[in-house]
């Protein structure tokens, strides 16, 4: 247990020891290329299994291609502690609890014996280390199950040997092996060292549990770090300290691309507590280091005070002049025609336009910020020709490489320590804050903790990009949707591709299911940086598409539920075996379930309505029904959102429900009142006084229903979010007959009741 409680540095050393032993083992055994290795050579270590989790094609060993690269470890100590090293960053998605649960299930472990440790960051060994795309669960699922099953088989074999009985006569439960016939039992603690002496079983002989036999998976388990969090002991990025550390702030031009023309550096350097102030030229890349002024001080407050006194004259000759209001006006003009760029055509779209009732509408949604509660920060120390960083990042491996590139160092001279992140939502996939800290620390010559203010965080985000859709839908005499047209107006940074998060797949629902289709695109130039925001693309597209489908259903005088199910058609997997392809059967099941649980069709008083929406993203099928009431003054109350989702088997039910509850609140919060006014390249909303995240009084009730299917599991950090906004907007229509086509809702005159 001593390792568990040891400080981070000691843990790193211990993990490193296991790692080195595992690599040595892997080298010896590379010819038979087994998946699991017993790690020998650690005195008193008990049973240590090394294995690999994640996409195999990105993993490689330090000693060259082809060798097996373990990146995860399971250790059963002689004291019974079951320790699992997790390579994925924890950003609030609960991965640090979910991954060990998978191991513990197949191991038949007593959950209270399980401890989990953050593994060190080393791309040469671990390959992809990231938290994004809801991919951590699906990429770990098979290997973690097999790891647990392998260890269990070895413990059973050790017990059977001890008792001189056949392994088939033994059973396991709660970290104990039983031989019922002779009423004997041995604990995993007692068996750990004996099991370590036995061979690792052939993977093919392992029998994984069936879902009906799960004892832990699918139950509600409280997060492994909860005690640390509620006592204020959890160490987030911003909490890390290094001896002799100074505090740094960094002032950048409010418009991206601006450079420092001059600054009152001498005055700043004379301020109390200020150690140094200097100009950072930047790399010219927003995702690395923007130009600005760094201030180093003896305390955060001294640095912040100096930052406020800082006067910078910006050279904005190359800076963004982007204007949201101009983009809106341009888009409205462009929307009158189709786009020049064709994304998808099917059937005879023009003929279909002449053979039914044509519905037309223009939808828009704004730029929004990630605004994680913990502003960007990073601690960095340049010493001995290399740099060490402590970062709350979603992509430590990418961060390490970015820092190496920016400082001109080989990657092995860069060490990254992963720290807990106070929210991610996609913001921390980009490691500009790490690159800044690295450059500032190198010049400062002392360890520094760079902390962004909330204003910095809002001004220098990689925003969820805004966008516009000019839709045409055609319903025939029978009320069937026979044509789908969308002129998608988005933005481009490079003149070629849509800006990050601003793409539209030709296979986006429902274009792949409607017989006559024309989807076109126009891209407006943009300098403001954009990036992935929780359920990238989907987080905005679902609002426009699912709202317009409802418009078509209304125009056809059809029930929305029935109309949506008709579009899906027969149950089929559009690309069998491809988890990222829509399965219309799974879609219909969640849609029907959400509708049933929400009481679809029930009589409601005037001003109250139910709204339905469906979206498929990140391999997850989600349908949601919102129940809202709206008064004559457009005061809106979202009473409840009923969610039905199919993400395969549920790992931690509590964690999954928490993610869905959070997605609903995030989805409502964003749809209700969040937008960024960008003028002259600057965002107007720079703190929570003007960026009104939803507060507790307005959080709707959330009812979650999961279809526990046997499809491979996917993550649930993202796919529950996209249907929220359209479900609410469709409910508003059903309540008062007002069609919301512009987000946020405050733009259309709605306020919170």
């Amino acid at each position: 247990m001593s390792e568990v409680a040891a400080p981070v540095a000691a843990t790193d050393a211990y993990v490193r020891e296991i790692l080195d032993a595992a690599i040595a083992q892997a080298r010896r055994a590379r010819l038979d290329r087994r998946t699991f290795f017993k790690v020998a050579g650690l005195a008193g270590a008990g049973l240590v299994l090394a294995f690999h989790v994640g996409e195999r094609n990105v993993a490689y060993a330090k000693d060259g291609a082809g060798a097996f690269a373990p990146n995860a470890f399971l250790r059963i100590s002689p004291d019974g502690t079951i320790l699992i090293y997790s390579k994925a960053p924890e950003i609030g998605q609960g991965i640090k609890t979910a991954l060990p649960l998978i191991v513990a299930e197949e191991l038949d472990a007593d959950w209270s014996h399980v401890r989990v440790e953050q593994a060190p960051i080393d791309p040469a060994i671990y390959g992809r280390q990231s938290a994004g795309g809801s991919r951590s669960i699906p990429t770990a699922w098979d290997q973690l199950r097999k790891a647990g099953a392998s260890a269990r088989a070895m413990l059973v074999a050790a017990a059977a040997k001890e008792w001189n009985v056949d392994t088939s006569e033994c059973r396991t439960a709660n970290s104990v092996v039983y031989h019922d016939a002779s009423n004997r039992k041995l604990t995993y603690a007692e068996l750990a060292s004996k099991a370590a002496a036995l061979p690792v079983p052939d993977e093919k002989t392992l029998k994984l549990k069936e879902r009906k036999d799960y004892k832990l998976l699918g139950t509600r388990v409280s997060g492994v770090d909860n005690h640390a969090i509620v006592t204020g002991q959890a160490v987030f990025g911003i909490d890390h300290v290094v001896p002799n550390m100074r505090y740094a702030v960094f002032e950048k031009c409010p418009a991206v691309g601006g450079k420092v023309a001059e600054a009152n550096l001498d005055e700043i350097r004379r301020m109390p507590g200020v150690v140094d102030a200097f100009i950072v030229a930047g790399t010219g890349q927003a995702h690395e280091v923007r130009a600005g002024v760094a201030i180093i001080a003896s305390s955060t407050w001294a640095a912040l005070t100096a930052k406020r006194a800082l006067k910078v004259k910006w050279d904005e000759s190359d800076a963004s002049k982007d204007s949201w209001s101009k983009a809106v006006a341009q888009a409205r003009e462009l929307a009158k025609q189709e786009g020049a760029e064709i994304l998808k055509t099917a059937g005879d779209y023009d003929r279909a336009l002449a053979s039914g009732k044509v519905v037309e509408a223009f939808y828009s949604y704004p730029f929004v910020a990630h605004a994680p509660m913990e502003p960007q920060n990073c601690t960095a120390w340049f010493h001995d020709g290399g740099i060490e960083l402590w970062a709350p990042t979603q992509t430590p491996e990418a961060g390490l490489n970015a820092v190496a590139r920016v400082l001109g160092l080989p990657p092995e001279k860069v060490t990254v320590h992963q720290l807990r992140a106070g929210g991610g939502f996609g913001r921390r996939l980009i490691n500009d804050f790490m690159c800044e800290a690295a450059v500032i620390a190198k010049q400062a010559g002392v360890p520094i903790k760079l902390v962004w203010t909330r204003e910095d965080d809002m001004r220098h985000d990689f925003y969820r990009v805004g966008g516009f859709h000019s839709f045409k839908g055609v319903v025939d005499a029978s009320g069937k949707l026979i044509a789908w047209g969308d002129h998608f107006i988005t933005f481009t940074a490079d003149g070629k591709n849509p800006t990050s998060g601003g793409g539209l797949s030709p296979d986006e629902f429902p274009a792949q299911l409607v017989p006559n289709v024309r989807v076109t695109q126009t891209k407006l130039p943009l300098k403001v940086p954009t990036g992935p925001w929780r359920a990238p693309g989907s987080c905005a597209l679902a609002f426009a598409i699912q709202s317009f489908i409802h418009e078509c259903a209304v125009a056809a005088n059809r029930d929305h539920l029935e109309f949506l199910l008709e579009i899906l058609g027969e149950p089929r997997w559009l690309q069998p075996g491809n988890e990222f392809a829509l399965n219309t059967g799974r879609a219909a099941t969640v849609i029907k379930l959400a509708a049933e649980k929400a009481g679809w069709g029930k009589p409601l008083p005037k001003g109250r309505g139910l709204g339905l929406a469906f979206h498929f993203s990140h391999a997850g099928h989600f349908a949601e029904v919102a129940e809202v009431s709206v008064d004559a003054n457009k005061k809106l109350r979202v009473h409840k959102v009923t969610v039905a989702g199919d993400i395969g088997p549920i790992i931690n039910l509590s964690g999954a429900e928490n993610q869905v509850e959070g997605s609903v609140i995030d989805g409502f919060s964003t749809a209700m009142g969040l937008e960024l006014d960008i003028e002259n390249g600057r965002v107007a909303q720079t703190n929570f006084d003007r960026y009104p995240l939803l507060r507790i009084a307005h959080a709707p009730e959330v009812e979650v229903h999961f279809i526990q299917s046997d499809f491979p599991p996917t993550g649930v950090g993202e796919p529950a979010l996209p249907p929220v906004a359209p479900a609410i907007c469709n409910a508003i229509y059903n309540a008062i007959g007002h069609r919301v086509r512009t987000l946020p809702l405050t733009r259309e005159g709605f306020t919170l009741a």
Partner: protein
Amino acid sequence: MRLNVNGRDYLVNDVDGSTPLLWVLRDHLGLRGTKYGCGIAQCGACTVHLNGEPVRSCTLPVSAAVGKQVTTIEGLAGPDGTLHVLQKAWIEHDVSQCGYCQAGQLMSAAALLKSKPRPTDADIDAAMAGNLCRCGTYLRIRKAIHAAARELNEETTS
């Protein structure tokens, strides 16, 4: 200047009285459970108690805390580590996601239970209105407060 934090006296040197209490706690006293979120008393991540009342330490000058009792998240549990009834409820209801705002949420909730041992939903709405949770754990926060209140009242009646 002298500060009393979590029942312990601290002598703080080289700090201007106008410095927000938040930064003195974090940088000078090493009590980093209290978090910075906005710096303008909008998010509540920095909530601590001053003589039992919830305050936003990011805008409270440290001079205002002199001669008063400051309680931070590190002082919410008993000196022997016994968790506050709210901390237990937070774990029981698996409230946290990223966890960054939760110290502030807990401090606001603890002040609420002190003044209203049986809070209604409206009481919770009012007392917790200053605490943002970007992850959206509000539903669990509400449940945990109600559960903690029930336990507290059972303790006092039995």
